[in-house]
């Protein structure tokens, strides 16, 4: 079987498994999985920039929040319906990622990290500053009645799960296709040896900018979906912590792999779920996980699998 066929089978298998899980799992876990799927979209967006292009951003919460508030505020104040709200969220995320891309890509390495961190921090503070409209840290609830799309009430557990799964599938397949395309391969080349890629004739800046924008819009889609499916928008989602989460998920699951982000979110979600029943200091687990990962398994779970057993893993 060719590598391409293997990889197609894997992706199809994962999606099929996710469909089946709805019918097997108890309600509590179905609800969790819906949340996990939306966060996995965020992780996949981040992975595109970090795992494949090699750019470490510490400010992706800006894009997630842009999607979240774009949808939330337009539905709240301009009575947008969910579909237009989603588009509004995407549009805002697009604007933010283009702006950050244009500015931040003039720097590299540590400076890039700090610039992205600063922009995200400014975003969070702006949400607080306009607290009159955004309700700041407290956030606001999007009414159940409004969350219907094409006649389907998205608040029901089945509808919510499959809405999340559909969006996840679209992004999952899109990214699987993208990383196999010449564009995706070039991103990897840039990560591996930027100077060499340049001297093969590739426009490095243009590629990086596209990567930032795609990454930002996908993250924004996750934010908008989160607000729509879980009915809430709040400033906590714009904090530095929410910029660090995708880094953690991607590292844990395997940076630069297509299934890594999903694995990472699942693992971390249940790890925190379990440890928060023991202590309020559950982020300690996250801290330990990060240190252990970077010491012993910098490739992450899927990455180690790929290194040792499955070199064809996309």
């Amino acid at each position, binding site marked *: 079987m060719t590598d391409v066929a293997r990889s197609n089978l894997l992706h199809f298998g994962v999606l099929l498994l996710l469909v089946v899980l709805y019918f097997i799992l108890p309600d509590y876990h179905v609800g969790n999985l819906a949340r996990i799927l939306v966060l996995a979209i965020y992780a996949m967006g981040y992975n595109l920039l970090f795992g494949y292009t090699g750019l470490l951003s510490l400010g992706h919460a800006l894009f997630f929040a842009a999607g979240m508030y774009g949808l939330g505020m337009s539905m709240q104040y301009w009575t947008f319906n969910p579909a237009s709200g989603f588009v509004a969220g995407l549009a805002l995320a697009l604007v933010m990622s283009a702006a950050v891309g244009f500015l*931040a890509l003039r720097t590299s390495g540590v400076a890039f*990290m*700090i610039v992205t961190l600063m922009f995200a921090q*400014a975003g969070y503070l702006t949400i607080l500053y306009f607290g009159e409209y955004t309700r700041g840290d407290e956030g606001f609830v999007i009414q159940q009645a409004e969350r219907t799309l094409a006649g389907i009430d998205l608040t029901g557990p089945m509808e919510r799960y499959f809405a999340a799964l559909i969006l996840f599938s679209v992004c999952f397949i899109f990214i699987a296709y993208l990383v196999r395309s010449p564009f995706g391969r070039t991103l990897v080349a840039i990560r591996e040896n930027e100077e060499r890629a340049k001297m093969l004739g590739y426009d490095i800046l243009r590629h990086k900018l596209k990567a930032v924008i795609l990454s930002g819009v996908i993250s924004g889609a996750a934010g908008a979906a989160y607000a729509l499916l879980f009915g809430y928008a709040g400033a906590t989602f714009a904090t530095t912590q929410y910029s660090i989460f995708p880094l953690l998920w991607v590292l844990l699951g395997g940076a630069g792999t297509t299934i890594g982000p999903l694995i990472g979110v699942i693992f971390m979600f249940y790890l925190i779920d379990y440890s928060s029943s023991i202590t309020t*200091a559950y982020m300690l687990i996250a801290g330990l996980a990060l*240190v252990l990962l970077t010491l012993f398994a910098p490739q992450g779970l899927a990455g180690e699998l790929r290194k040792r057993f499955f070199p064809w893993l996309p």
Partner: protein
Amino acid sequence: MDFGPHFLIASLEGAVTAAILALTAMGLSIVFGVMRVVNVAHGEFYMLGAVIAWWIATLVGVHPAFGFVVALIVAPVLVGLIAATADKLILQRIEYDPDRTIVGTIGLLYIIQQTTLMTFGPDARPVQPPFNTRLSIPWFEFGENGFQIIWPWGLGTTSYKLFVIVAAVVILTALWALMTRTKLGLIMRATQQDKEMAQAFGVPVDRVYAWVFGLGAGLAAMGAILVVPIQQAHYLMGHDPLLLSFIVVIIGGLGSLPGTVIAAVLIGMSDGIISVFFSPTLAKIIATLVVAMVLVFRPQGLLGKLNA
């Protein structure tokens, strides 16, 4: 109060902020300058300084001044040791690889912060200042009777705040002397200039790095200990100083120590002054965006070297 006295108060508060900030940011700057490491956990070492100072002051109990002095001596050393251990256990193992160091120090941040949460708890706890007399500041006016000295109500500071400013200056001067006049300082600067050459000359680079990492943490801890009688110890108190330190180090120029001091004074003063007259949130937004733009358009900051 009129503008003049108000501005004076704002400046005094700004000077205190600048003093603490200079110490804290200096720690970050030294670590980056010598080791080329961005320590995201730097704010947590700051917080540890305050928390350990609280423990010591509570244990010693006798008189606030005594407890405070003990804390000021012991806590930075403890924090420095913790930092040096982290360097040996984690950072040296990953050979200071840039991406892995960022991730590792983020992990360290959560470990320190959450362990503190588990042991110290979520509340903010005060520490008594060693001395704290109110000092009224006179103001001058040209009234109908000519030149007059008046004492506007509310225009004043405390002796402790003045002490903080003086202490910071003393510590920074001592640091400068250490870096430029002692053998240890020479070794540190040599290692910063050329790591391989230093090794060829028999300098134990690994140990120097552990020392430097510890020193950086210790400086931050000192800053927190000085501020804790004014502000209270809390497990989340490291977040803002971390961001501010980043801002200072970048504006001052990565790898430039004099730049750090100048930037700390500028930013500390303006943060204090702007916060008094405008909304602190707006001030922070502007400061954050300014930093980002400085990095984008003038990456070497005020006094830094390009490719630092």
